């Protein structure tokens, strides 16, 4: 009997090595441990043993059963692992197949730049306000110290409506509207559309401007410089240099045109900046006393500055689109680039 038990142990351990599936494992278990199994059969002979032999063989039988049971368990775990491995292997995919990307909408490039501009000025305490695009001569010109027959009106080729109104040539009229309705301090920026009769690779008849205005009891030209330098550094990079050149606008005095160091060559001089190292980006100046008088502010009591910039121009410093009319074709191949 001892021999039989030992033989069974050897046989089973041997057989387990050949097992490949759970079914085979189960058959093997039944073959030995089933009701008619070989081990069961051997155990049936236990009753015939002598009183002395029984505990010895009983112990051996238990040992064999227990070790084989462990072996079955191990084999089962191994098979499980193998099976999972196979299943996972079968489930593998070609990860180079395209991802199911949610379609991404994109803001218009001009709006992206406009939004960035708004954010920078809002951080400096400027409030965003808007105003009408159909304007009167009064708000667009007269109140801005540009009376009829003033040569400065030549600089603005104005669209007129058949009812005598006009399309604002700049966002500056909103300055007047705000000051008429609010006492200083005023600290606003006015983003919006403006219109001029102009249509070529560098001009669209509709364009976007951001106008800024700061009025308080004592605002200086040096603060105008500070605000714009701060803007330029955030917009174009910390290394950006800024240059203020005297210029003329009817509604500011002193007036300046403001250049930044060329974004292409960093001021060394290249084709983009006409080899000057500078690129004009905006016009600015101290608010002209006549403008204050037009809104019943006392120019001896308040001072201020204003500035205005073309958004397309600033956008194009970055994008370098050869024909800016492309902005308004809304070609999806274009819009998706930004």
């Amino acid at each position, binding site marked *: 009997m001892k021999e039989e038990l030992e033989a069974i142990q050897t046989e089973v351990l041997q057989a387990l090595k050949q097992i490949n599936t759970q079914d085979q494992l189960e058959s093997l278990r039944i073959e030995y441990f089933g009701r008619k199994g070989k081990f069961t059969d051997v155990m049936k002979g236990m009753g015939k043993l002598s009183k002395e032999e029984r505990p010895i063989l009983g112990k051996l039988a238990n040992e064999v059963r227990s070790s084989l049971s462990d072996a079955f368990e191990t084999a089962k775990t191994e098979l499980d692992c193998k099976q999972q491995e196979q299943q996972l292997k079968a489930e593998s995919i070609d990860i180079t197949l395209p991802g199911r990307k949610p379609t991404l*909408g994109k803001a218009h490039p*001009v709006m992206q730049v406009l939004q960035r501009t708004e954010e920078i000025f809002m951080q400096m305490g400027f409030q965003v306000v808007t105003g009408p*695009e159909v304007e009167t001569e009064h708000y667009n010109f007269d109140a801005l110290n540009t009376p009829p027959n003033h*040569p400065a009106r030549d600089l603005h080729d104005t669209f*007129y409506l*058949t009812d005598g109104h006009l399309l604002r040539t700049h966002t500056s009229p909103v300055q007047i509207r705000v000051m008429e309705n609010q006492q200083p301090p005023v600290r606003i920026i006015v983003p919006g559309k403006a219109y001029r009769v102009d249509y070529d690779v560098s001009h669209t008849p509709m364009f976007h401007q951001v106008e800024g205005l700061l009025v308080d009891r004592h605002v200086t030209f040096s*603060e105008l410089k*500070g605000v714009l330098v*701060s803007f330029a550094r955030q917009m174009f990079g910390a290394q950006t240099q800024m240059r203020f050149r005297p210029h003329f606008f009817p509604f500011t005095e002193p007036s300046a045109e403001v250049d930044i160091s060329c974004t292409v060559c960093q001021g060394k001089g290249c084709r983009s900046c006409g080899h000057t190292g500078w690129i004009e980006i905006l016009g600015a100046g101290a608010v002209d*006393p006549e403008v204050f008088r037009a809104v019943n502010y006392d120019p001896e009591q308040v001072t201020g500055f204003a500035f205005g910039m073309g958004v397309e121009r600033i956008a194009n410093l970055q994008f370098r689109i050869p024909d800016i009319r492309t902005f308004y074709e809304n070609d999806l191949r274009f819009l998706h680039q930004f």
Partner: protein
Amino acid sequence: MNITLNWLKNYIDFDFAAEQLAEKLTMLGVEVETIKQLGVALDGVVVGKVISIKPHPNADKLVLCQVDIGKKDKLQIVCGAPNVHDGMVAPVATIGTELHSGVFIKKTKIRGEESYGMLCSENELGISPDAAGLMELSPELSIGTPLTEALGLDDTVLELEITPNRPDCLSLIGVAREVRAETGNELKHPQIELNESDTEIQDITSVTIDAPELCPRYAARIIKDVKVGESPDWLKQRLESVGIAVINNIVDITNYVLMEYGQPLHAFDYHKLNENRIVVRCAAEGERITTLDEYERKLTPDMLVIADAEKPVAVAGVMGGHETEITDSTRDVLLESAYFSPSSIRTTAKTMGLNTEASYRFERGADPENVIPALNRAAQLIAELAGGTLCKGIVDVYPGKREPIQITLRPERVNFILGTELEATEIEQILSRLGFGIEMVQQEGRDQEVAPTEDSVFQITVPSFRVDITREIDLIEEVARVYGYDNIPTTLPKGDIPVLVPNKLTEVRRRIKNFLLSSGMMEAINYSFVHPNCFEKIRLSEDNPLRDALKLQNPLSPEMSVLRSTLIPSLLNNAQHNHNHQINNIALFEISTVFVQDKEPARVSGILAGEIGDGVYGNPYKHPDFFDIKGIVEGALEVCGITDYAFKLTDEPTFHPGRNAELLLDSKRIGILGEAHPEVLENYELPYKAYLFELDLNALAGATDFAKRFKLIPIYPSIQRDLAIVVDKEMQSDLPIDIIYSTGGKLVESVKLFDVYVGDQVAEGKKSLAYTIMYHSATETLTDKAVNDLHDKVIRKLNQELNAELRM
């Protein structure tokens, strides 16, 4: 305006190179737009003299020239020009020269004969288009000198942009004054010496001003026995270098003095003036004049003219008359130098559509005190260069003489405005260099002898040429620009930050835009102007007020002639543009104001058309349908916190009659959406369906509530019941939902339609709608029985109200 460096040096000394000068002028506010070296491509071209000519042995049309270029050896040059002749002085491109055309000159053989250079035409040198023959040079030129030097082409042209407030800079002397402000060097005015004859001008002419308001000053001189002809080379070259056409010596001189002084002059043929006299008056009704450009022009009584005893002979300050112009046969010249009112000249020039060098200056403001110096300078030059004799004296009628403007300037105000700490003496120095008269006004308790301090007050006298300076602030700008904007400190504002008022419209716009972007739509921006036929193209009904669009008086084109009252046509145009370029995944939106009568309401509009998605394996293109656009509208409302709205079918002709809706908020229409009508698609040449929406952002902003409050998360479990009912096919799917809510009351947490079925399983004319109802109580766990009772009640109610049969 163009000037040249060498010409400018006639009026002031400076050591700047062209680039430095450009930088200085630019930083003073006289922007130099371009710097151009004259005659750059003329290196290696020298003055040569043809000393002998013999025929070319192998070619009829060529000759062999011996040319002297000032060196020991004469050059043999093969030439084919028809005008080459013995003794001719002409430009020679020597070996090694690269001409502006790119031609490189080397020793060569032409038909077997050696040629050591090239005799050049003006065209070959890039001087003019003249290619008819060799450029004939003055025999007085010294042989062998570089051509640039010989022709005065060793100069640099600066193109200046003069702002409209600075007419005083529209001349060389004016620019020289700016250089003086920079350097402090004194101006060198032209030396004028006049040899007058005994003939008194008063005896042979007179000037009458009938309109002194429009012509405050008119002066004339007469030069007799001039010889009209070509100007000398130096004069021609000067004018040409700054882009002024050369006419004849008299006219050239007036233009030269115009450039020098900025004072427009006009020369009349004295004998063609009726009664040889001048009357400055407004034109009479119906008068006409043929101007120098040989156009006959109608004159109106608001136009100032220069007339003789009978008729207009010039449009004052704008253009002279053809009849009295200087011709080769002119013998005696009446030279006009005047000052006209800027607004009068401007109106006339504008009405006539003429913009001349004269009108440009007069309308911006000339200097009345410049009238006589410029007149004398021109008279001197005519006498010198055209050989005339100058009559004695000037007729100078000056009814509008004005006292110089006086302005009080407070130095502390300068610093207050600029944020600087300038000393009064610095301010004084700057203004005096600019030609301002300065007097320190005695302050109480102060001694006038002491140097000015910051508390002093200056009394400033404005020179007559500075028409732009009338106020203290104008003087402050003068100080700032000469001191240098770059020298003004850079600081941040110190003032209070104003109270920020939140703006609901801005917030609604921002939220909807972000939502649409995250929905995969691209933002478009279109012009505000559209073609008036767009309303027809989107089939707006005849009485739709949107058709009443504002019209432009001066549109660029019919496509851009009215202001849009709706964004939909613009987006359909964009769809068409993209489709025409084979791009068919059209998902675009635009946020903009539109123009409706006198209002500018804000709108958001969107379009879905073609194939949405990226069309890759696993994520195929999808044709959008009504419910895509409806979902987008619903999402837009959700991000605005608006829940209480309704959709209702409309009869808007823009849309498919059965696939559209208006969006109602408090039973007011605040938007429309739907599938574009097939005719609309056809009008925009779209081969596929397009879905559109347009919402009123002002209405949304008015209805929105961004305030958020916490609501208790349910404690008790919800119980789900699904329900399928069979109803008439035409019935709207939201009717059962309303009934379920009203029947179940607070215990209905949510109702969701999850299936719609039409087909074999239900009777003809019927459809099945399946809903998931979540029952829930905030106060207890609902029992099955309670839910079942309620659910049965719902079913009964649906049956009673909608004749809905439970589908088993």
